[in-house]
């Protein structure tokens, strides 16, 4: 049996009605702290009916002046209000009326818009397989957007909001993730102020920046000549090297930890930043070399040959021709290495005992104890995340190109 447009419209409306009410009720709960119970059944029925109205009006739009989506929105609103006894979020009208009203408007508009986009072009009567699949894909993509956005954004939202709360309010109502402006800016940022004044986070920030930048510089110093040699110069074992360098990147860090711990302990390098600055570049050089050699191969070698003809040495060619041409690749490699070094946890955790030289990762771990309140932990997480996210958003284009250019052809 082939599902006709009525069935498809009904399912689409039902899905969007339920999705929209759940998403909006949860959002309302998290913003206001009042438990908003989504009346999913009522919303589903309302969505179903409104979708049918939409398809019906769309089929006979010429006869009426009002566009189909207006009819659909009205139906949705009426049935929802009747079905939920005028309390779509199971909250009395008196509680947070502004937010409730806003949520209701958002629900009606959102569900109507999603339904009408998904069903645009659908007419009463049988649908072809092509038309049906178009609707399926629209619904799937729409749900996909909603789900992905929530699963990606929710943890970050919770992280930031928790860091702005106080211990009592967190325990009293874990759902209340609103910003309490009444306590003033000092009260809001209390956790951050304490981290910077009492927990030495300013220093950790500096140490992390120092370690990451130094790792980037060291990695480039090692990997640029290496990548150039692998991609441009001919020597026995070149092809083997170009392939095997990535294998190094497959070696698990945990296998290296025990021997490095043992040796660094005996050499006195363990509890030092020098130790970290030996290990970090060693783990990033292979991937940097791999990314760079992919880019160098793509550069026209005629330019370098011309440089050689005109009397430049190899080193001169690299410095004056190759490197200026590969600035985008250098930027993306630097960014990638910076991210690896900034986010690195295992070696920092194993090697560093002295709180004066903690990196941020190590510092945040030390907050994870029962004596330190949760909002401090989250504030630490925010402090560790913000710099790397800012840098990432700034250079995103480079990173995306650099990550994918080395390996993807075609």
């Amino acid at each position: 049996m082939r599902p006709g447009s009525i069935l498809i419209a009904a399912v689409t409306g039902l899905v969007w009605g339920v999705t929209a009410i759940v998403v909006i009720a949860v959002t309302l709960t998290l913003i206001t702290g009042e438990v908003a119970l989504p009346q999913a059944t009522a919303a589903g029925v309302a969505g179903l009916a409104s979708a049918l109205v939409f398809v019906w009006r769309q089929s006979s739009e010429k006869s009426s002046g009002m566009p189909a989506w207006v009819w659909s929105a009205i139906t949705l609103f009426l049935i929802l209000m009747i079905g939920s006894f005028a309390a779509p979020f199971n909250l009395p009208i008196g509680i947070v009326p502004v937010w409730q009203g806003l949520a209701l408007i958002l629900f009606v508009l959102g569900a109507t818009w999603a339904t009408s986009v998904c069903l645009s072009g659908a007419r009463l009567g049988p649908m072809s397989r092509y038309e049906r699949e178009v609707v399926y894909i629209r619904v799937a993509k729409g749900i996909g957007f909603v789900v992905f956005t929530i699963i990606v954004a929710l943890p970050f939202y919770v992280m930031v909001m928790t860091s702005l709360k106080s211990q009592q309010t967190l325990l009293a109502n874990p759902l209340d993730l609103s910003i309490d402006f009444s306590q003033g800016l000092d009260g809001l940022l209390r956790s951050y102020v304490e981290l910077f004044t009492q927990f030495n986070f300013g220093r950790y920030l500096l140490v992390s920046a120092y370690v990451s930048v130094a790792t980037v510089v060291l990695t480039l110093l090692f990997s640029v000549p290496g990548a150039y040699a692998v991609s441009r110069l001919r020597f026995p074992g070149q092809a083997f090297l170009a392939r095997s360098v990535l294998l190094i990147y497959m070696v698990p860090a945990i296998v290296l930890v025990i021997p490095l711990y043992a040796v660094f302990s005996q050499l006195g390098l363990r509890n030092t930043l020098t130790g970290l600055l030996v290990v970090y570049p060693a783990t990033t050089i292979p991937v940097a070399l791999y990314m760079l050699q992919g880019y160098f191969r793509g550069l026209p070698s005629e330019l370098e040959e011309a440089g050689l003809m005109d009397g430049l040495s190899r080193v001169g060619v690299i410095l004056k021709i190759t490197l200026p041409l590969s600035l985008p690749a250098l930027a993306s490699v630097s960014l990638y290495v910076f991210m690896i070094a900034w986010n690195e946890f295992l070696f920092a955790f194993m090697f560093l005992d002295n709180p004066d030289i903690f990196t941020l990762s190590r510092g945040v771990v030390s907050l994870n104890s029962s004596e330190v309140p949760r909002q401090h932990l989250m504030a630490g997480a925010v402090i560790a995340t913000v710099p790397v996210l800012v840098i990432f958003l700034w250079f995103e284009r480079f990173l995306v190109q650099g990550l994918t250019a080395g390996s993807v052809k075609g």
Partner: protein
Amino acid sequence: MSAQNQQQDSSGPPKGIGPMQRREMWLAYLMLAPTFAIILIIVAGPLLANFWISVKPVQLADLRPPTVLVNERVRGKPAAAGDSAEIQYRLRNSSQDAEVRNVVLTDEVPEGFNVTALPEDCAMSGRDLTCTIGTVDPGWRERLKLEGTVTDAFLAANRPERASKPVIEGDADNILTNFDFSLENFRRIFSADEFWSVLRVTFYYTIFGTGGALVLGLFAAQLLHTTFVGRGFVRGLFLFPYVSPVIAVAFTWVVLFDPFSGTVNALLTKMGVVADPINFFGQRAIEYSLFGIPMEFPLALTTVIAFEAWRYFPLSFLFILARMQSINTDMYEAAEMDGATPLQQFWYLSLPQLMGILSVLFLLRFIWTFNKFDDIFLLTGGNAGTRTLTVDVYEQGFALSNLGAGAAVAVVVFVVLVTFATLFIRFSPKEEGL
């Protein structure tokens, strides 16, 4: 230039390598030398050292080799020049179960102290004192006393015995460098009951974590393969989980799913979805019955796998999207003309084109997920049935202080990894260039 001359002179193509090529070769080796050096020292060396440690009964405490500790002080209270005093060296073997051989103490006797009586093992030459003590037993203690008289110079100085520190030399068995080997570590880890469950958890985690990240990535790539307002923003947002420090996102998940103060549990209980809060990261399994057969759902492991898929889907999403954007659109137009439906187009046109990058991503992610330590360690600490091999390395080596056993588990990790890599290289598609 000389290479070209040679070519012109000889009748056939050049044999061997000419001077210019040789120079190029040496330049290449020179440019690669630093990279090689650091990788040998920090990657290859420790890899071998790990095998070495795995066949030795090394404890964490053994990293400090036994030695003789010394403490120097002045006895008797000399008040005026000519008073007698005593310099005492208190010696102690730091180890309770290992001897130290060829122990020699050297020191410089402080200015203004005239030695009158020496212990029998000691000899003076000028101000230099040398005491040859020989082999000392475990837990050995001893006092060496130098008797003598003091002068004004000694009295004037502030704590004159501190002017030079006594130096002790001695040989002790360093368990890390001797040639005693045993397979005790391996016997221990293989005979432990939990080892096989650890292995099973590792494979569950690796396979489902990799699969989850790939499927989510493929789906996300489909979403962003259309143009719309705010596409760049959404793409940036979708990359957040991958870019953020693992420490931040792992702790956020822990806080989010906390059974008492977590947002997710509060939502679930307040909205009546579940009666009691669920301890997502702490509960090993949920029991249920399917058609009367009792089954267990590994809850903590599933949550950890969900985290893995959540954190790493951006990487696969990025690569898949890049590949999709490079597919020629003519093909789709032709298919459209022939009446192919959207799902058919995806199944018969897009997916075959994506197979290459999907398999490469699968291999890479499989290996990296297998290697992953941080995520599980931070989320559950390897408790509640989530201990994988890598977490076991830490658990054995550092939590239980048995470095040797930890290294033995690390050897297992490495062997499994090499097996995978060999299989993958044999069956991997060549055209993707990885």
